[in-house]
């Protein structure tokens, strides 16, 4: 864009910016830098995207990358993620397994009667996929930076109606047709499904109930299950109630309103008033001393 006239120029930037931001955001959102290997998979679109990013850190043409080093990097990355207990999507783990296999293929001499693909073939196919993905990304960038209609190039603003080219006087695209059909069918399909309403205890429900209970708990240890059962009329609610209640108990313990004790695995959980049991229940439901 040439010309320096203030206003339109600024507009021009403004219009360009979102497109570029989109890309930059994508790059910045990746929690992976060369210095510190911070693990964050949020910015990546699947294992291939992550691999491509790692490959770029090798700073060589993709046809010349060391696939072995790449596999190492990826596996190290995944290890790190598991260590800090990041839940990895299955496809990341599948890729890790494949790369571990590839690594073994590359390092262990080929056996005589081995009919699987050779390590070199596997490496080549990986390099090819990375190269192809990168090529498509470059193509996308070049495409988006072309002179685009409505942004850089404009159509006649005041069109006149010319004799219609279509034989039909109606206009509709295949997309219109299909989306009409899909949403119609979907609308009816969904209204026919009735999902049985499940009674679920929310954490808030459980907390409220427990705070009520705290007032009645003596200084003696009492079993949690015991408590819960007392308030449950419907047996189907048991599981959800106990789960939510337990989570709420932990919260109350942290706040010092409750103490918990369990003698062993699968043993009943006991609770009693904590040192700060009487202090301000923020919902008015908790009795104040």
């Amino acid at each position, binding site marked *: 864009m040439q010309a320096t006239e203030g206003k339109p120029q600024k507009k021009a930037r403004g219009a360009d910016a979102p497109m570029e931001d989109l890309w930059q955001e994508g790059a910045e959102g990746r929690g992976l830098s060369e210095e510190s290997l911070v693990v964050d998979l949020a910015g990546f679109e*699947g294992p291939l995207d992550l691999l491509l990013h790692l490959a770029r850190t090798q700073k060589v043409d993709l046809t010349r990358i060391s696939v072995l080093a790449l596999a190492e990097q990826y596996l190290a990355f995944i290890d790190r993620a598991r260590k800090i207990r990041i839940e990895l999507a299955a496809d990341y783990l599948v890729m890790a397994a494949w790369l571990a296999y590839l690594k073994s293929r590359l390092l262990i001499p080929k056996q005589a009667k081995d009919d699987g693909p050779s390590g070199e073939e596997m490496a080549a*196919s990986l390099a090819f996929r990375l190269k192809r993905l990168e090529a498509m990304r470059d193509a996308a960038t070049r495409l988006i930076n072309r002179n685009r209609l409505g942004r850089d190039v404009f159509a006649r603003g005041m069109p006149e109606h*010319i004799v219609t080219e279509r034989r039909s006087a109606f206009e509709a695209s295949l997309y219109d047709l299909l989306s009409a059909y899909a949403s119609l069918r979907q609308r009816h399909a969904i209204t026919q499904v009735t999902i049985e309403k499940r009674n679920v205890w929310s954490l808030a429900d459980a907390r409220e109930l427990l705070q009520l209970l705290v007032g009645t708990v003596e200084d003696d240890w009492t079993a949690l299950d015991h408590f819960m059962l007392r308030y449950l009329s419907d047996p189907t609610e048991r599981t959800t109630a106990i789960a939510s209640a337990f989570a709420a108990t932990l919260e109350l313990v942290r706040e010092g309103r409750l103490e918990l004790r369990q003698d062993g695995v699968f043993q009943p959980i006991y609770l009693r008033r904590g040192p700060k049991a009487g202090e301000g229940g923020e919902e008015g439901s908790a009795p104040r001393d």
Partner: protein
Amino acid sequence: MTEEEERAEVLAEEGTVVDPRRLHEAGRIAEALVFASAGPVSEAYIAERLPRGVDVQHVMRALKGFYAGRGVNLVQVDDSWAFRTAPDMSFVIRTDETEVRKLSRAALEVLSIIAYHQPVTRAEIEDIRGVQTSKGTLDVLMEAGWVRFRGRRRSPGRPVTFGTTRDFLDHFGLEELRDLPGLDELKGAGLLSGRIPANFQVPLPLGEDELAEDEDPITQMDLEELGLLAPGGHDEE
């Protein structure tokens, strides 16, 4: 028909000289037709309305040349023609209302894969990207009018194939698909096929000299760890 007209017509059919006045008139008609429309007008439609014996391609080419250096250019989009402002005029015309659809990174990637690989099935798109196409991505592209169902692949399951539309060409200022940037190089490099091309360089797997600065070469330790890599991750940093 006068003798002269007859002669002109014969000549026109032979692709030679045409009465210049007639050619001028044909140019005016074509110009008016394309100018009147905001969208591209097909060559066949224009041809039907030209005086008999005038070659539409000849007329359009002359018109294109005539407008080449002006503020408004005649451009070809597939088998159609449209007037568009010259690209270097964008800075004058841009207004506040000027807004172009913003595509997500994923949508843009899918769009370019469809453009370069068409006809392409959804499975192929996913193979190239290495991830499932999230719901709504193809939807957005179809709604924008850039992507369409093309047909079905003659293979098991007859999967639907996707391709781009004329609006796509129009939007990105392409005359035809062959004008896609870098198409020939990509083809030449075999990057538009599903299979690894024969000439694709196989990287040297043990090229230690190609390691990046922040990488260590493989050690005996690593070798021992082989096979045990998945669950543990016992090494300290």
